[in-house]
């Protein structure tokens, strides 16, 4: 069985399959189809979708809904992410599972509203004050829109943090024929099944008092408890102790801030997701993500058809950077070519990792896609 569909539809399906029960968004091209499909589909399964008054409200409602027990998602584009910024920080600080879809468009400000771009790669990573890590996944095909949405929900539960799904106008809008068996389900863990496992939501501190933000060791994730679970729970965006009371006690403050980073940074192996198509003897590694990876895969086929050796790496988990997979792929090649629809944002990360290997870029910001031919030109 096959169907003619687009990435937006696949994302909504993935969200529903993951048990999403609440969505709030504000119309913006090219993310509006997700809002509209959610408004149509979510009530059918007993969920609620809200068209909020602005993006600040949309993400705020999602955070509130998560804290009251819902599985939540929101979707926007660059200008909306700008408005999400402060509440993304709130979700990081309050350790709130939340899936945020950024359907990228080109340029700063209104930019090219109907034009494809990949310029938010660093923005989503560093998009809130303080610089704490978030998880960012990037699908490169319609079936991946489905499976990575499910994965985003799972990682949000696992690490209690906002997880971004970074897509683009092209992937979300362009209809393609997809084989139904290409859609792969990803198991999504239960609420409360953090690193300490389910069944111990009523975590206590040393005095026997309920401590919803107790984590141990530093990279552990406190089991999620939400409002309505028969134990009085507080939440604050301020620096807090394990009972969620505001504190300035330096050791507590230090431990909390390190914990927020460690719980993600020290579990890269659980997050890392790439497609490595490595050919022994290849001197060039092509590296890309999102819609650009489609052209890359096409170029690899062509090059190999013509007898050329080439390796390719598609990054699906952009943040934290999948360093192990990248290092493995870099082993033995002379140059890596990073292709993206911006002026070299992810290339910076590769330069950081690629010692003694030439790092080149294929970059486009004219609103057109990088073509397979552009890849073929750089293979040597």
């Amino acid at each position, binding site marked *: 069985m096959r169907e003619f569909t687009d990435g937006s539809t696949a994302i909504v399906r993935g969200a529903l399959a993951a048990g999403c*029960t*609440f969505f*709030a968004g504000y119309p913006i091209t090219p993310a509006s189809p997700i809002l509209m499909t959610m408004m*149509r589909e979510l*009530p*059918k*399964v*007993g969920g*609620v979708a*809200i068209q*909020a*008054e*602005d993006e*600040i*409200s*949309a*993400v*705020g*409602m*999602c*955070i*509130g*809904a*998560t*804290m*009251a*027990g*819902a599985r*939540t998602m929101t979707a926007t584009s660059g200008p909306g992410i700008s408005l999400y910024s*402060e*509440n993304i*920080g*709130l979700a990081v600080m309050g350790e709130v599972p939340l899936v945020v879809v950024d359907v990228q468009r080109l340029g700063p400000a209104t930019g090219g509203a109907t034009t494809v771009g990949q310029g938010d790669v660093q923005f989503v990573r560093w998009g809130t004050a303080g610089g704490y890590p978030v998880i960012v996944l990037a699908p490169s095909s319609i079936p991946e829109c489905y499976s990575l949405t499910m994965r985003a929900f799972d990682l949000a539960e696992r690490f209690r943090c906002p997880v971004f799904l970074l897509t683009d106008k092209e992937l979300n809008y362009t209809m393609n024929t997809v084989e139904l068996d290409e859609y792969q389900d990803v198991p999504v863990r239960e609420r409360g099944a953090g690193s300490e496992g389910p069944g111990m939501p009523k975590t206590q501190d040393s005095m026997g008092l309920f401590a919803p933000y107790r984590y141990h060791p530093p990279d552990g994730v406190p089991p999620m408890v939400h*409002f*309505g679970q*028969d*134990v*009085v*729970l*507080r*939440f*604050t*965006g*301020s620096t807090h102790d394990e009972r*969620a*009371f*505001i504190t300035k006690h330096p050791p507590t403050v230090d431990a909390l801030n390190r914990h927020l980073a460690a719980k993600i940074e020290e579990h890269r192996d659980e997050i890392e997701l790439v497609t490595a198509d490595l050919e022994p003897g290849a001197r060039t590694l092509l590296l890309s993500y999102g819609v650009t990876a489609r052209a890359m895969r096409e170029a690899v086929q062509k090059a190999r058809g013509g007898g050329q050796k080439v390796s390719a790496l598609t990054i699906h988990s952009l943040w934290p950077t999948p360093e192990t997979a990248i290092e493995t792929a870099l082993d033995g090649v002379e140059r890596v070519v990073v292709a993206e629809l911006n002026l070299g944002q992810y290339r910076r990360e590769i330069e950081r990792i690629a010692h003694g290997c030439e790092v080149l870029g294929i970059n486009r910001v004219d609103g057109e896609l990088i073509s397979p031919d552009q890849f073929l030109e750089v293979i040597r």
Partner: protein
Amino acid sequence: MITLAEPIKVKDWKSDVKPIWCPGCGDYGVLNSLLKALSDLKLDPDHVAIASGIGCSGRFPAFVNAYGFHGVHGRALPLATGIKTANPELTVFAVGGDGDAFSIGGGHLPHAARRNVDVTYVVMDNEIYGLTKGQPSPTSPIGMERKASPYGTYDAPLNPIAMVLSYGASFVARGFSSQPRELTELIKRGVQHQGFSFIQVMSPCVTFFDTYAYFKEITAPMPESHDPSDRMAAMQLALERTQYLGVFYEDNRPPHHVHMEELQEKAGNHLTLEKLLERFQR
């Protein structure tokens, strides 16, 4: 509204965190009135959630033995909307200051009102920014001289009651922190009202703008003849110089979460026995 057979005493509604407000701050009166209302209504702490923004008044949730959500500046209403929508069994409050409600968060107020989210919004209006040490707020009088306005302000103050009436809020009231008995009754009525309840509470900031004497002079009880179903009359009273204390307006259209259930039915999600049971068990 989920209630208990026996009320929880006011002292048990207090958390073990002592408020850190300045002695004499109006917010103490608001807190005590709210705690008394929770007790009088026989509410269950496991079914009460309080969302706030940032400000002196925003510290509120930490002092109450209920689910508390201390978010970011101006965004209490989106949080409260999300909480109520995801779990309609909770009795949900939003609390905050005049800056939180009418300045940075002013864009959310009309929409919470027209959606008729079943949330009781208690705004502690001290006509100043307390937490950031005394800058003028959107309700400050013209001519206020502060460090942030050394030559006096020229911007006219907002009229929150008139504003919220025109937004179509289904419950609009004003109280005064120095009249705890009346304020408790207003909060109780706000909670019992199914839909968006807006309560402006005059709550002086003794440290940066001591308005006790001024509020006493300018406030008066709501005229007994006022009929709260008469929106025109409510608007008339809201526009007078005298700041009336009591319920300006109330109508009983269905709240947002009831509409959402209706919408789910329309979309084809029929309540099965299983779902009803699931709800019951929650």
